[in-house]
């Protein structure tokens, strides 16, 4: 099962990103686990300075904006 981490200190864009991944996963019928990382130290640890960021398998695959639905679908189906 895919494990997504959404990095962000609680602003709206970070919540939107997490919701987007959850919605897209549901729409595609894929089970995913979504973890919200809000601790600044942890976020910086991934080298992300502009939230929201998305991490899969400990690799940062996106940072700096809310991803588009298409991009998220790509991640889930990969």
């Amino acid at each position: 099962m895919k494990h997504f981490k959404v990095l962000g200190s609680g602003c709206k864009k970070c919540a939107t990103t997490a919701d987007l991944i959850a919605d897209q996963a549901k729409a595609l019928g894929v089970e995913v686990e979504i973890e919200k990382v809000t601790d600044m130290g942890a976020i910086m640890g991934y080298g992300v300075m502009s939230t929201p960021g998305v991490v899969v398998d400990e690799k940062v695959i996106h940072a700096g904006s809310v991803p588009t639905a298409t991009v998220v679908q790509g991640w889930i189906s990969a």
Partner: protein
Amino acid sequence: MFEVFTRLADWAAYSLLGLTPDTPMGESVHFFIEDITKIFFLLVLIVFAIGLFRSMLTPERVRKVVAGRSRAVSYPMAVGLGAVTPFCSCSSVPLFIGFLEAGIPLGVTMSFLIASPMINEVAVVVLAAAVGWKVALLYVAAGLTVGIVGGLAIEFLKLEKWVEGYVWKIRMGEGVAEEPVTSMKQRIDYAWGQVKEIVGRIWIYVFVGIAIGAVLHGFIPQEFFVKYASVDNLLAVPTAVLIGIPLYSNATGVIPIVEALMAKGVPIGTVLALMMSVAAISLPEMIILRKVLKPPLIATFTGILFVAFIGVGYLFNAVLV
């Protein structure tokens, strides 16, 4: 160049709605319609245009570029980049930490944080469209200067001790997935995404700013401003800056108010002082920065900007009015 919006407002306010020119209501509504159409048109256009170029400029890149440079280079670089990079306030904290962690001095980092909300290219172009290029360039020059001076002041006062302790201990990871955005289609998608995101984020401030500007324009007579805000009233500039502190708006949102005030004859220094104060000193930003800055530093930061903006206000009034 923008007469089309004036004509549109003429038609909408006077023909369509049947209002009379030179009446408070007529003037207000005309102002409102003209500015709403003009500013949002420009907003979309410019955010899109700049978005086409900006896909390459991320905070992570800025950090790499600024780190390790001498003061003489990093200060101008920080304000210059702060001026052209947009970022959501929630990124202020990671950005701040990231800069410090890369060894960028506190002063330089603060310069970036000062310049960023104050000078944004969208606001500058809209300002130019509203009140002319001279004012817009002055605003940019003032903003860059205050950014550098403010940062230098914080460095000179050695305020590192007022940064929250944990910040110095954070080690930043490397290897953020750099998503090179190179194809034209990707750039267009990115630019369009920026339009949706930025306009979506700031439209309310612009809307409220235009509404306030419209009321000022139509309902508050010139005499009021002559009495209280003329060049001779030395309290006008500090008052303008004080008013701006608790108020927050995106820089673009203040422009309609700037426009209305200047049309009423309020001197340019006073007006710019207000604009800078509203844009650069904001309660939401301070609450966010509280995560990394101790209250004395936040207070000092505000105090320095307060003094700087008053200085700019007086200077411009003295030299230009």
